[in-house]
């Protein structure tokens, strides 16, 4: 059981909110880190976000978005607009291994909680910030969101059809992938370094940079060849057929990627070797690329007479990479594979009831981690943190509640 939660001795003072920060600290919480999110009634907003579970009217504990990203964490309310609030935060940081925030650059410094100050309180502390453009450089004041970072890094330019405007995911993609998992990797590598040396450090994830780092050859093709790559729909230079094809049913699709001659042979077998697949023009990748439009129509002729599940099953049976384009309902209600791996979890939340949560992506054989608690209620852990952890007296706590320091 001990090994179940490998990070159980790590405490995180978590000032982050919305998407990228909470996603990162949730990853640490899954594996046992004690993540204390510093919230406040003065900070508003995100806990009221959509979608809302049914529950007490006006409650800050019902947002499905918030709850999913904050499972396994602890919540306190601390009013950072008061000097006493800042002081309590400093004491909490003194007992923490990691401090994370995604404020604009300078906010923590104005509170006297910049790295240079914190390291005096806690020499081994690892502090991380995730400003959009970084805390220095000509555009350090830039503000943005996942969607604008996605545009800046070139993802939009590379997404969509050549004859249409660039498009994107509309999920603020960088906030759930490049930003949080780069940071989690960096934080854990810093813990490893601290295990060897006792040294903490300051980590900056500039969102523009972490996302520009996952652009495949977008940058290198320019810096080496001066080529400006652009979007190619679902086509790829190294594979054909390689696209998304219509299937039976309304708006149902299957993705197919034939990446080798072996897979092309498998593809022909999966289709029952109809005459057209023997057309010598399609015998090589180069030939298939040259006649791709026509080839795509023929492939779609086959897929459109089948359900996406059937097309996937027949192709995979012959070793051809294929997958139905699943929507959220498919993934959560019908995908036998995700179900068998137990990906989505149901957790009972005191106000939101039994709702679903994303599970742990990585399965670790010795220390699997655990979705051990739903998201905390706002301020649920005030008693634990202020009384037990920080050793404040009941009187002090009550005074702070009256003065809206604990608020």
């Amino acid at each position, binding site marked *: 059981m001990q090994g179940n939660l490998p990070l159980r001795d790590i405490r995180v003072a978590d000032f982050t909110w919305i998407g990228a920060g909470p996603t990162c600290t949730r990853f640490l919480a899954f594996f046992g880190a004690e993540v204390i999110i510093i919230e406040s009634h003065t900070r508003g907003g995100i806990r009221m976000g959509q979608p809302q579970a049914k529950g007490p009217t006006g409650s800050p504990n019902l947002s499905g978005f918030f709850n999913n990203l904050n499972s396994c964490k602890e919540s306190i309310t601390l009013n950072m607009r008061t000097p006493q609030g800042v002081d309590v935060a400093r004491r909490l940081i003194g007992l923490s291994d990691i401090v994370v925030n995604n404020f604009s650059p300078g906010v923590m410094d104005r509170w006297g909680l910049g790295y240079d100050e914190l390291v005096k309180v806690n020499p081994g502390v690892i502090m991380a910030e995730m400003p959009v453009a970084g805390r220095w450089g000509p555009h350090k004041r830039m*503000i943005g969101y996942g969607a604008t970072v996605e545009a800046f890094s070139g993802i939009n330019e590379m997404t969509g059809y050549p004859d249409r405007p660039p498009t994107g995911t509309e*999920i603020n993609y960088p906030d759930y992938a490049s930003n949080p998992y780069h940071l989690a990797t960096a934080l854990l590598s810093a813990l490893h370094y601290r295990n060897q040396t006792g040294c*903490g450090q300051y980590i900056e994830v500039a969102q523009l940079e972490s996302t520009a780092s996952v652009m495949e050859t977008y940058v290198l093709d320019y810096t080496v*060849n001066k080529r400006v790559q652009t979007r190619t729909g679902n086509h790829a230079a190294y594979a054909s057929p390689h696209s998304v094809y219509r299937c039976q049913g309304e708006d149902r699709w299957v*993705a197919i990627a034939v990446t080798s001659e072996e897979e092309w042979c498998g593809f022909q077998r999966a289709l029952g070797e109809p005459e057209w697949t023997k057309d010598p023009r399609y015998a090589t990748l180069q030939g298939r690329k040259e006649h791709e439009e026509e080839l795509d129509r023929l492939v779609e002729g086959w897929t459109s007479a089948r359900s996406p599940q059937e097309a996937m099953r027949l192709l995979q049976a012959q070793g051809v*990479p294929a997958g139905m384009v699943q929507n959220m309902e498919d993934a959560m209600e019908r995908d036998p594979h*995700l179900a068998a791996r137990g990906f989505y979890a149901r957790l009972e939340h005191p106000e939101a009831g039994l709702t679903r949560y994303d599970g742990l992506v990585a*399965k670790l*054989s010795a220390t699997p981690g655990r979705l051990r608690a739903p998201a905390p209620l706002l301020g649920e852990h005030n008693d634990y943190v202020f009384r037990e952890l920080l050793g404040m007296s009941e009187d002090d706590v009550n005074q702070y509640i009256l003065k809206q320091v604990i608020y």
Partner: protein
Amino acid sequence: MRQQESSVGPQPEAAPSALSDLVVLDLADGKGLYCTRLLAGLGAEIIKLEPPGGDVTRSVGPFYHDTPDPEKSLYFWQYNVNKKGITLSLEQPEGVQLFRRLAAGADIVVETFQPGYLAGLGLSFPELHALNPRLILTSITGFGQTGPYSQYKATDLIGLAMGTQLNLCGFQDRAPVRTGASQGHHQASLHAAAATMVALFWRDLSGEGQHVDVSMQEAVAADLQWTMALYDLTGVIRNREGSRLSPCLDGYVRHNLGAGWDDLVEWMAGEGMAEDLAEPGYQEVTVRRAQQAHINEVLNSFLATHTKAEIYREAVARRLPICPSSTAAELAEDPHLNARSFFMPVEHPELGESFLYPGPPVRMTETPWVMERRPPHIGEHNQEVYCGRLGLAAEELRELQRRGVI
């Protein structure tokens, strides 16, 4: 500030690395290449194992000067900078034996084979664990090591499809479209890198290695904002929404209304293009929400009269959340990223040139990002690794090469 100074520009030679004590054996294809690339940047010694003749990813373009050549694949360069390269045939028993000897002295193995392939060679996790109890084995596959689809094959496109991200992207009148630049692969690698670091932390405490199983499908499915919660709580299934970018004179920009309303209106009014948006009624967020379509229309007409560069400059100065949709040229020449030395030169002495690679995704003050070594040539480090690390004699190495093991 200290942290600013220490993360600018070239680092002192002596700067330590976070993972400099680690040796990683890299058996990854596209799904896992960025995982080991990240570990390399954090300072681990990565030994990339390729089959004799070179890895298949060396045939993926684009190529240097568009000349197809296994030493000139930019795809290979991008993901293998800062790694060492050796050749080894796992198809031959002697190759498997050599791999066992390498694994005995390694800290991490990252692999992306179909589940069961390594076990078939006698290299299952329990067997590797018996050989080296400290070894961490990270397996990155399309669908994970277990479950009914575990033998299904996956590329980036298939991972995005099955993980539901593909369904969220594109135009209603056309097929859903993938997110560009191999984001399925990158998500699998990012989740795997973070999880490998958890396993490393546990090993620091316990001395025990373990097996890390990462499914690209799940990595993609976990990164979908509130899409899961929306379905769970309301039954609403999100779908593709077309393009939300706004055309301007020379391309597109992306805005995200919500912050800086007054500054935005001031900018537009300054050019006489705010129409009715300066009226006090719009101070109310609820009004703005109700009038979203009208506001977008006015804003888009305004943006259409400017270039990307103008909009970018004003947005930064006025602190508005608007970004250009950068072309590769604009990204590579961005003044901010260049002032931060984000693009780092890597020398390719054989070509007599040095190229700018995208640099640190994270900046760490004590253990800065490492970008020193150009990607390896085929078998470049055979002698160093086999003779130096494993202690093979030069004739033995030649003999193994002759028999096609190396």
